[in-house]
């Protein structure tokens, strides 16, 4: 499903130095898993997320997503696979401020060249599913944080992705709303979608099935949440 084989990634620092961010990551995430990636800042978890999201390239190793090797992709190919396989959820929601909730949810379908009527109808269904049907024509600035994140999750789900990548999805939410959002992720996961959440919040990682701890560019530990808690 998601397979990483000894992924290495360095960034140039200054003229001749390199910062070795990921130092040989091996990771397998099976279909239908609910995983969290934890680690302090600088541990390389953002870089790992970028690579998983086909938003960044890697130096060597192999990243296989849905039996496709994600390497040396053209700009167009990576856009295509992002759209086909992945759904993104961000800490700051990243809804387009000039589009209403329904149009925001419909955006990935625009890039699949689905007609406007069809994509708005599908978007409405998804909003309904997340209890936001009455808010469909509201602009993002008229929604609460929790509502915005639900719109964002609906948007991530609309193209029926194999994997949902969430970058600190509860970072901007209070604990009660965080709880709600995590429940949505669990529900989504139950329906068969793989969910990968990057977080530094133990409350969040505690509600996932498996926690992958990253430190200094290597996977320090990978195991179920309870086990992790004991280690911590």
């Amino acid at each position, binding site marked *: 499903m998601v397979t990483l084989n000894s992924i290495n990634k360095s960034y140039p620092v200054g003229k001749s130095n390199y910062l070795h961010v990921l130092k040989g990551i091996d990771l397998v995430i099976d279909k239908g898993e609910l995983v969290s990636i934890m680690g302090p800042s600088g541990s390389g978890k953002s870089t790992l997320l970028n690579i998983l999201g086909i938003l960044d390239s890697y130096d060597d190793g192999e990243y296989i997503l849905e039996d496709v090797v994600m390497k040396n992709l053209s*700009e167009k190919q990576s*856009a295509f696979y*992002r759209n086909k396989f992945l759904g993104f959820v961000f800490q*700051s929601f990243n809804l*387009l401020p000039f589009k209403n909730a329904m149009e925001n949810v419909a955006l990935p379908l625009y*890039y699949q060249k689905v007609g406007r009527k069809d994509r708005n109808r599908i978007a409405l269904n998804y909003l309904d599913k997340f209890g936001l049907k009455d808010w469909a024509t509201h602009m993002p600035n008229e929604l609460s944080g929790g509502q915005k994140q639900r719109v964002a999750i609906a948007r991530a789900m609309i193209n029926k992705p194999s994997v949902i990548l969430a970058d600190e999805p509860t970072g901007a939410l209070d604990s009660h709303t965080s709880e709600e959002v995590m429940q949505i992720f669990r529900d989504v996961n139950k329906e068969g979608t793989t969910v990968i959440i990057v977080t530094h919040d133990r409350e969040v990682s505690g509600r996932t099935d498996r926690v992958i701890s990253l430190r200094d560019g290597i996977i320090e530990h990978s195991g179920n949440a309870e086990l992790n808690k004991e280690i911590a």
Partner: protein
Amino acid sequence: MFKIDTWEEIFSILRKNKLRTFLTAFSVSWGIFMLIVLIGAGNGLQNGVQATMNDDASNSIWIYSGKTSVPYQGLPIGRQVKFTNKDYTLLRERVEGVEYLTGRFYLWGEFAISYRDKSSAFSVRSCHPDHKYLENTIITQGRFINEKDIKEERKVTAIGKDIVVTLFGDEDPIGKYIKVNDLLYKVVGVYKDEGGINENRIVYIPITTAQKAYAGEDRIHQMMLTTGTKPFKETIKMAGNIERLLSRKHKVAPGDKRGLSVYNNNEDFRMMQNVFTGIELFMWCVGIFTIIAGIVGITNIMLISVKERTREIGIRKAMGATTNSIIWLIILESVFITFFSGYFGMMAGIGVLELVNFVLPDDTNFFRNPEVQVYVPVAAFILLLIAGVLAGYFPARKAASVDPVVALRDE
């Protein structure tokens, strides 16, 4: 890329960013509006001045005689130099490059002109047939004075359209006789002249008739000739030749302008042309700089707008947009604004010119028919479109190549 969907996306972006759209559109509209109004005003000025100059052929040399102011060959100061029919013949035969030539025998003051019971006062001008080319007299009916009239000293006349209105009303004047100070002249032609109202109120008669009827013997007061298509330098040479020829014959000291004056209108025309070229150049400069300001305006606004949209671009990329689709979206947006605001500015500019044209009285001196040649707005338009594409492309390419994750964290 030209799907309805893309345009719907663009419209929704423009609608939701009204101020930005307006500012961009305004700078483009203003640029093209100013260009058109300026060029139109420049042309109006030129048309106006040219219309007042249309009266006389611009490629002409006028020759006057007067009283000498320099003693020469034992002759005293203050001697009246008198041209005669012989001088007319001399110029005809001895000066190379003369296209049309006419003399004038002055009939001073206004004459009582009457037809049947109607009477009014008009000027009478006597001349040779070629005179119509020198004054740009346009024959609307019948003919002008011809060689036969001159030879036979006929009492015929060509009259201005205003005289026809006054004396004949709706009656056909051709073949009728009008009385000029008790002498009857047969009307052979009607003319109009665009040199102003007074030029349409003149009675033209053959110079030989005038000389005979008004005791002129063979006297000529003034001679005028045109230089054809000769280049400017050649006309100066011609004027020099004429001056030498006549001053030798009439014993006028070389350079005595009071005694003999040869006035080359080509020089005036050339100067006017230079002034116009200068004005035109100036208008173009102002117009083009205004357009450049407009282009800088769009580029600036597009830069800011794209910068402002880094996050939007990041989101779109995460949702599966390719770099090219984002660049396209922004370019189309930019071109769309440029196109319509450019069109609007152009129409507003042409509208203003038309309005001025409409309000302005027809015979306004020095400003007439402000207009632009078609290629001006078209060229400006194409320039703006290219500018619109470039103004969209460069910032868009830069922004679209930004790492989406960085863009998305760009708070």
